[in-house]
């Protein structure tokens, strides 16, 4: 199973961090720091697998972002790369030519999409289509709620008004 997914910029800034096991903030910070350092030191044309303590780190770079996955040593490295790729594909479809800034400003969306793909470190849906369907559905519900909300606010303002 996947223990964490990190999105790290080329400058070493964390853009997204999802942890599938609970651990103290300190341990998380240590892992983020170490793994970021390891991954950033890699060159192109090197393999996408690293060893960190007794786990494996599978990463892939897309434009300026590194997608980093921590997996157990018995897991399949190649399929982890596929999962990363699938996530990127869905992000790309959702945001339309996704870039780093999209993820920075819509981090809760990035989380929501990830949640549709992976729950508790397990791939729950491999189909891009159905992931996108669920996410856009959630968006429309939110919009609907928001508009209701705005109407209600306006209404209450109007009623309270002089």
């Amino acid at each position: 199973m996947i223990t964490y997914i990190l999105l790290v910029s080329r400058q070493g800034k964390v853009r997204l961090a999802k942890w599938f096991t609970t651990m103290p903030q300190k341990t998380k910070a240590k892992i983020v720091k170490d793994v970021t350092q390891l991954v950033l030191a890699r060159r192109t044309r090197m393999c996408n697998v690293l060893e960190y303590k007794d786990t494996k780190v599978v990463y892939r770079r897309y434009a300026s972002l590194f997608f980093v996955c921590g997996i157990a040593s018995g897991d399949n490295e190649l399929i982890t790369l596929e999962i990363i790729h699938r996530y990127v594909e869905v992000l790309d479809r959702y945001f339309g030519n996704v870039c780093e800034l999209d993820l920075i400003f819509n981090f809760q969306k990035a989380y929501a999409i990830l949640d549709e793909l992976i729950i508790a470190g397990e791939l729950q849906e491999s189909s891009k289509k159905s992931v996108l369907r669920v996410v856009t559905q959630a968006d429309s519900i939110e919009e609907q709620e928001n508009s209701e909300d705005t109407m209600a606010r306006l209404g209450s303002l109007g009623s309270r008004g002089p």
Partner: protein
Amino acid sequence: MWERTLQDLIRGLRANKKDESKFIAQAIAEIRQEIRSKDMELKAGAVLKLTYLDMLGYDMSWASFHVVEVMSSPRIHLKSVGYLAAAESFTPETDVLMLTTNQLKKDLSSKPEDVAVTLNGLSHIITPDLARDLAHDLIAMLNHSRAHIRKRAVIAVYKVFVKYPEIVPYGITRLRERLEDTDPGVIAVTVNVLCELVHQNPKDYLALAPQLFHLMTTSSNNWMLIKIIKLFGALSPYEPRLVKKLQPPITDLISTTPAISLLYECVHTCITGGMLQGASGNALARMCVTKLAAFLQDPDQNLKYIALLAMTKIVPSHPELVAEYQDMIISSVDDPDISIRMRTLDLLTAMVSRTNLQTIVQQLLSHLVRPDTSASGLPSATQSLSQYQYRTPLVSATPKSTNAPSQSPAYRLTLSHRILALGAQDTYENVVDFEWYLSVLVDLAYVAGVNVGQQIRDQLVDIVGRVRAARRFAVQLMLKVLTDESFLANAPEEGSCSEILWAAAWICGEHCGELAEPQKLLPHLLQPGLVALDPEIVAVYLQAATKVFGYWAAEQANTFETDDLPKVRDAVDVLLERAGEFATSPDIEVQERAAEMVNLFTFVRADLSAYRPKSDVGMDMAISISAGFGGGFGDTGFGDNNSLDPGFPKSLYLIRPLFSAYELNAVAAEAQSLVEIPEDLNLDAWIVPPPREFTEPDESDDMVEPKKKKKSKKGKEKELGTGKSKGKSKSNGQPDAGDTAGTAAASRTTETAEERAERERRKAERRERLRDDPYYLIDDRPSVSAISANDVDSIPVVRLDDLPPLSQAENARLPSLRNPSLSSAPQTFVIDKTGELPQGSLSRPVSRPVSRQNNKDDANSLRDGASPAVAPPSFPPYEVEDEIARTATPPIKVTRAKKKGTSSGKKKRTKTGDTSPLAE
């Protein structure tokens, strides 16, 4: 209305890169205000901002109650913010989790969207308590009408199983039903989950095999197939019939699938699931290895990586298949990618054999050669390897850039350890040519540049002990090392591997019989530059010098002519002068050995100067002794045996028997445990009583007496156990200032007022000392200062005092000792793998002729892992019987060394006495 949104926060963070902490402190202060708001929208916004900051590493545990508030919002998009925050920030210790049970139950029976969000969040925050309370709701949800809820429920149930295993028997059947779900997504998730669960108790899941097999042969979903195959890999070791059943479909998949990840999983599972046994298994194995070899050549580095990984796993069962690709694998060590290098190292370690060890080690060694530093290290390294072709092309092939993997100390250390491990595997099983391997060890010391000197030293000493045929070459090689100034010059540097000098000195000293002119080694062994070395090494140097002289002197005695006298005398003078310099070393071990040396050689010099050809030797001896040591020899056995005139100064034979009585061999791992503990040795007794005794301020006499008694017993224990004798002071009539225990014990029945005052005073002194001394070595302290002035003299006196006459038979044995027969250039190396065991636990002290071949009972000689504190060759000669004094300097290391060989060591001492030719 105009609070900062998440977007504003992020923009602000980007705008305030220089003063981030201040900006964040301000933002958190705002959030603290907003989060208390009654407006749920605002509260949720604050929680979302906090979640963002949490992701960046800032604490949000203080807000957990507010997170629960947001989770309870009826609006789905706010609720999902709450669940996101909970999933990110809650830990099992978060106390508000207890409050969420009812909220979660409510959400689980709400609208499908709510249920989906809840299941997502719940699978992250679930605790054993929550798992217990919600288990039945969640299991019921496995039959939800909507597929995407069922899918999430499967994962939530998996988390419940993990946190609350008691529910597994109840829930597993319901989970199993999901394997026949109408929705392929649900089936895939169920397989995923089972794949994780199976590792806990594989046997419980064997019943699933038919269903899974059906899925495997019908499905085309590669994501799921990978998991199914992984699942079978876990099951097959528990059901042998599965292997047979699985082989055909897996073979089929391997040969047909275009998906490399699936192919890799198949190969991997075949290996780890033990599917490669038998005739059909061998065919499958060949197929797997062929596929992996294709990966190795693939330009995709990932495939190379996994190929190496999988090959490492297949090597133990099918080494011959992997060996076909040896060259390809070895070349992977040169890969610039550290991940691939490490995998290759693993694989090489796994596939090493008698035939390929040499190639592999040379290749690894070439990586360690630094292009920049090669000027100093390489020439001698290549020299010692001259008969083997050094792979210069590979040296130049090492990456040039400074941050290349081969330059990083961690990698160099790993590489050096690997080389050492490869050679030492199964007690040098794969080493065909030990001369080559010894050269490798020396080369490694030259080029490693990391701290592996100790391992190199241990292996050198170990090999010399175990492989007799390699000794001559080892001595030659070590001679080169000893005479090479570069180790000495680099000694203070990190990673200089100067510990190899320890081995060099020890080996040259112990086996100096291999040298044509051992005396030429003496200046090297006692050069003043040694002070740069670790004191531990210097101590071995001194010991080696004594041994070399002993051997050479005995050899001189064999062919003694009066003309030789000046030569020997000069050598002794030089030795004395050099050793005297070390006698003031701040290190106690060096100091003691140097002092011992000085005294030994003072004696030898006195004997030499008193030697007159063809005169009465016995007289001379007496004179020399009284001149050197101020009496104490009057009643020894020397006068009785002076009818024998050997025609050379007898002191030439003084030193060698001290070292040559026992050959130092590897000791079997269990030897120590087979040594019986002597009856009078109580290992449970305190050597030094615990400090509590001394800190009690008011002791009544009644209390004191038993304690004193106990202590005196301990004092005796120490004498017995460590050979450190208090009896010394008694027998020599020296003031027993430090022997408080003994005094107290003797006078405990009639303790007068003065004695008591005296005792109190000493106790106070002890307490004083105790403060600075972490080891509580209290008893001996005063004796150090009191006796140190005298102790050097006492060593030889006591030593000789105890020597029984040498028998004729032993005398006849001496020539064979001097000329150890050596076959020239042996081609076969016999490794003494087991090491020696004590013959019984007690050796018979008398009647056995002591020869260099007879060493079965030598338990404290050489050990496998060579702990540096133990310096085996040095002690036997100085060990005396318990009641006889030796130096009172408390050398902690010495004590430990003696403990090791307690029982047999004691017996040996008497024997060592038997063999001394001086006593005739």
